[in-house]
């Protein structure tokens, strides 16, 4: 039951859902502080994009279930099972974010309703990030049960989320401001922190072994993947930075940001595949 397909579906989930949540929160902040109603409405339409990213991730995660028909029993484990908490948080976030997007199509959608709704959706998103990062704290799996698992998940999610959010903000025709520069800076900081965390994790792997295998042998190419993550990630940031030139046309800006989003996703996806390949137990 450790087929590559399983790993791919979960790698896809963790490369999409956290980034979707981060991009959603950034768009929600842009909406909360939007200066004019026109712009707020444009963001309301395009908030479907980060929602869709998280939703695709959630659907991908369900493909590793053998018998999804009985999946509703998952809520019986809420409070005791980290995975149940994660699924509950995901369902709450997707429900709040998706329903917000749909209700926002009402012609008269007062801010008094919109703003608390968005805030609650953001809180559910933060809960989803927290629960996803804790889902791998399995005592019997020494390669997952480390501080690096949540750190890498959150840092890569933050990095990819900031890159995606710039594309989605461009789609909502939100003009450049100093916040655009801040987003690129935040992306660079999380990319750098992610690389440092992964390098530390790679060094830590040398100390993990069970009866039969050493953790380092599970992912001999990890240093190479970290290098790819750093370079491709830096490429995404470069494109996003290039898009900030005042002379860039809107079309060029959009294309640059689409390319950046694809690069950021690819960079994170590669590291997630390694994470799932690192599975081993304290046994054999």
């Amino acid at each position, binding site marked *: 039951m450790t087929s590559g397909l399983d790993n791919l579906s979960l790698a896809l989930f963790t490369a999409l859902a956290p980034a979707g949540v981060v991009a959603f929160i950034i768009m929600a902040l842009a909406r909360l502080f939007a200066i004019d109603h026109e712009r707020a409405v444009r963001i309301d339409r395009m908030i479907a994009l980060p929602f869709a990213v998280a939703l695709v991730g959630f659907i991908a995660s369900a493909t590793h279930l053998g018998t999804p028909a009985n999946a509703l029993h998952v809520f019986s484990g809420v409070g005791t099972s980290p995975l149940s908490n994660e699924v509950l948080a995901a369902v709450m976030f997707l429900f709040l974010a998706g329903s917000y997007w749909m209700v926002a199509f009402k012609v008269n959608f007062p801010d008094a309703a919109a703003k608390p709704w968005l805030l609650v959706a953001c809180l559910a998103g933060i809960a989803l990030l927290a629960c996803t990062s804790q889902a791998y704290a399995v005592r019997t799996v020494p390669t997952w049960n480390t501080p690096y698992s949540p750190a890498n998940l959150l840092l890569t999610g933050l990095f990819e989320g900031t890159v995606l959010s710039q594309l989605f903000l461009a789609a909502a025709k939100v003009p450049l401001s100093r916040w655009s520069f801040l987003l690129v800076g935040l992306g660079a900081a999380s990319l750098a922190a992610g690389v440092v965390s992964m390098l530390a994790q790679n060094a830590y792997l040398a100390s993990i072994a069970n009866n039969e295998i050493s953790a380092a042998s599970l992912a001999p190419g990890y240093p190479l993947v970290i290098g790819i993550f750093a370079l491709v990630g830096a490429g995404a940031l470069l494109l996003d930075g290039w898009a900030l030139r005042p002379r860039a046309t809107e079309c060029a800006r959009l294309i640059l940001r689409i390319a950046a989003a694809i690069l950021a996703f690819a960079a994170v996806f590669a590291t997630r595949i390694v994470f799932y390949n690192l599975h081993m*137990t304290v046994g054999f």
Partner: protein
Amino acid sequence: MTQYGFYFDSTRCTGCRTCEMACKDYNDLPANYAFRRVFDYEGGDWKDNGDGTFEPTSWAYHVSMACNHCAMPACVANCPQGALEKDADTGLVSRDEEKCIGCGTCVKSCPYEVPVVDTETMKSAKCDGCASRVAEGKMPICVDACPLRALEFGDIEKLRAAHPGTVDGIAPMAPPDATKPSAAILACPAAKDCGDTTGAIANPKEVENA
């Protein structure tokens, strides 16, 4: 609660696999996995005596292992569906077919690689200690089948008292502190402690549940 578990006498086991086959037959299991598996744990080398002579230091022993029905089962703790349950009376860990979604979390968390997701039913499957036979006052099928009388089953504390000197794990089993297995193992002279790195599982393909 009485905690049931298996006693395994590694000084008697010859690695004949009768326990494994009896279990597969009784539970009608497919070819690609087993609830009870026999691990061949082997090691050794040629020792250079320095005078032109060499001595073999090879050793080998068998570990017949089903589910250890742990006191702190990782599969139960991590199952998101509550589909794995530890029986309140017997301490046996079994799987609720209705609740299981085949997500494989039990497979990934068990350090003994006991649960398996069946590729036909797409649900997890595992040794339940022959709970229905035990309820009828019988022994699990593997215990009855063993021609060497190397397996016993019952209240694990009574088994430990009846067989002084047992341990709750030998290599290649996982260190017992992770899940507190309800196992009593009489170690043969060749047996190594859990976490041993001087030997290796010699039949990895045979014991791999797929």
